[in-house]
């Protein structure tokens, strides 16, 4: 069992098809908190105390965002700069986040083929997210490989219909403590098919 904090950062949510579908499908439950950063802090005045309080009360921290120039949107970076304080998150006395999980949930315009050594982006998304992985490391957090939606520009409505249940499966799996048994050395997060699902059921 794990409490999950979804830190969601999207500066143009109204134009996003995939994130709108994903976010609107998120179930209401006590152990799952959706925290929409651009909705909370349109003026970038991040309330550090409040954010640290939120982090303290959760076991899994998800960074959900579109990949912009191979990185996080600016408000999420601002959030990191301000909230992950020295002496609180890292450095001497900074142990507030020890043992918690950091899980990127990322959408990218490029296809999976574009994100590899021979593709036009020349690196995998996990490689691009090295600063995030290192941040997790420095804060004593456990970093999970990113869960990725590729090729968002070309997604049709049927594709999105197929992605939403997979996303809900991911959330369920994390809430059930699935990360404890996750394979951490992959390029992307592998969510095992749910045990007990009947054959033929699409996960």
């Amino acid at each position, binding site marked *: 069992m794990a409490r999950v904090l979804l830190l969601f950062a999207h500066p143009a949510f109204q134009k996003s098809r995939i994130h709108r579908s994903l976010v609107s499908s998120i179930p209401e439950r006590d152990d799952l908190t959706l925290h929409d950063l651009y909705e909370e802090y349109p003026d970038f*005045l991040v309330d550090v105390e409040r954010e640290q309080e939120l982090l303290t009360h959760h076991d899994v921290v998800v960074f959900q965002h579109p990949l912009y120039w191979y990185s996080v949107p600016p408000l999420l970076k601002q959030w*990191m*700069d301000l909230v992950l*304080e*020295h002496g609180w998150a890292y450095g001497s006395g900074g142990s507030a986040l020890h043992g918690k999980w950091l899980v990127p949930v990322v959408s990218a315009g490029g296809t999976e083929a574009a994100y590899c050594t021979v593709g036009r982006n020349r690196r995998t998304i996990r490689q691009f997210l090295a600063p995030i992985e290192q941040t997790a490391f420095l804060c004593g957090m456990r970093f999970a490989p990113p869960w990725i939606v590729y090729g968002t520009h070309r997604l049709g409505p049927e594709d999105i219909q197929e992605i939403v249940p997979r996303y809900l499966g991911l959330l369920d799996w994390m809430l059930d403590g699935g990360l404890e048994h996750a394979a951490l050395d992959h390029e992307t997060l592998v969510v095992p098919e749910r045990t007990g699902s009947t054959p033929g059921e699409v996960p």
Partner: protein
Amino acid sequence: MTTDAFLAQSVVYLGAAVVAVPVARRLGLGSVLGYLLAGMVIGPFGLGLVGAEGEDVMHFAEFGVVMMLFVIGLELQPSVLWRLRGPILGLGGLQVGLTTAAFTGAALALGVPFAAALAIGMTLALSSTAIVLQTLQEKGLVRTTAGQSAFSVLLFQDIAVIPMLALMPLLAVSGGHSGEAGHASSTWISGLAPGVQVLVVLGAVASVVALGRLVVRPAFRALGRTGLREIFTAAALLLVIGIALLMTRVGLSPALGTFLAGVVLADSEYRHELESDIDPFKGLLLAIFFIAVGASVDFGLVAADPSGIILLTVGIVAVKGLILGILARGFRMGLDQGLLFAFALPGAGEFGFVLFSFAEQEGVLSSGQTAPLVAAVALSMALTPLLLLLNDRVLRPRLGTREVADEREADPIDEQAPVLIAGFGGFGSTVGRFLKANDVATTVLDVDSDRVEMLRQLGLKVYYGDATRHDLLHVAGAAQARMIVLALDTPEKTLAVVRTVQKHFPHLTIFARAFDWPDAHDLVEAGVDHVYRAPLDSAARMGRDALRMLGFRAYQAQRSSSILIRHDDEAMRDLSEMRHDEDYLGEARSRIEAVEKILLAEVRDGGATRDLGWDPDSLREDFGSAPSE
């Protein structure tokens, strides 16, 4: 009519309404049916309390329609008309065309000459806007597909009346009838050649348009400066009655004239003011109209030839209903919506009285022909609410598919803005422009007639009107809007509107502009959640720029001013709760000091700031260098 007789008649009409409507409502029959029944009871063939002569009753009736069509016209902006052109022209055109053809054909088959047959066909194609819309509104069905379609058809019919009226003199020529001498003296244009008559009709229409465009607005602007409410009411009545008189003088329907005037004024800034001024008169006169329709059912004629009149009435309703049903299928309405549509419009309309009397006057039809037709028109009108009741109680419950009115998207009929703005000075107009630029429609009310005029010239949609009046808020669409922005000139007016809104439109979210702390507290205390102290934001912006001017970094200055605004807002809310306490000033002082402390911490090194992520001091101690690179 002597004063005494007038008062006696008023007592009879009002008494009938006051007694009949609550009873009809109680029985679930709706107010329209109540009025109609009341009319039958007090009419010449019931108790005989009013209208010993049918003419008298019809005279009453016509003024009710005059008022109603003026208000319908006011609600009918040319732009709305344009957006509805598809259903209006398609559905409405087909309904009028097919029904006219069917009845003309039937009349021809019965041996009526073509001109007379066409006059009958056209007239019977019309339905009663008053009865249908009032009944649909009462049942909350206006926003359904069927309600919308019915509205479109009624609209087309209302417009089609204009060429129909213009056509009557021409039919008289081609029909070979000579004008009947008995009516020639009633209007002076009857004596003119038919071609000239058409010109006079067109001239009268043009003069109403010119009156609305050129005279009314400057006149009302001048009246607005007086600030006297009753002068407006008087002017509105003067306008309607004046046009009605003008139209009667040239032999046109006064209802048509005021409808036209309404449409012409629908775009003007005085639309809401006019509507709320006329509305009570309209409501009352409409009631009298319905009573008059009830009273005008000529039971004498019905008694003389019951089977003939009933056959005629049933025939009209059946043929019209059939055509409506076919159209509903053709336009792909669901079964329940198609039935509602077909059951709403099969009656004849009040224009039937006007057109038949005009046709008779022009000599197209003889009084022997019109009398049974008028009786059938009145009967079929009385049937309309009954038919809708039948559909509501018997047919609809048996249908599986039902369209719920509330689930539909906002319909184009009432192009209802979600935001009302009261007060359109510098503050209100900025909010309004900002919302408009984000594609949010607003309805704006302002009481400064000169400012309204100026803003209109800038291309902004502003209406003249006092937002403290709940009737005016109502016609401006407060019932359908989601929020109201209060940007009035004085705190007293703002509070007055807050009370009006809370009492009559509690669903509206109020956004209020305050000038300073005391009236901000007043608003919070009155229960307004969104209070904006106007000087705060511009003061904070100026402070920010002052800091920049003094050499501060721009982003630091920006953060500092944003923090000031946030804390100031919080303080304003908290202090509102304790404004009557002894130590209000002490608390206010400590709040101000707290904000200063927070802001200072941003400036000074090593302060109590929480934004240590940007503060290298602790890192230097810990690592000797920053963590990245």
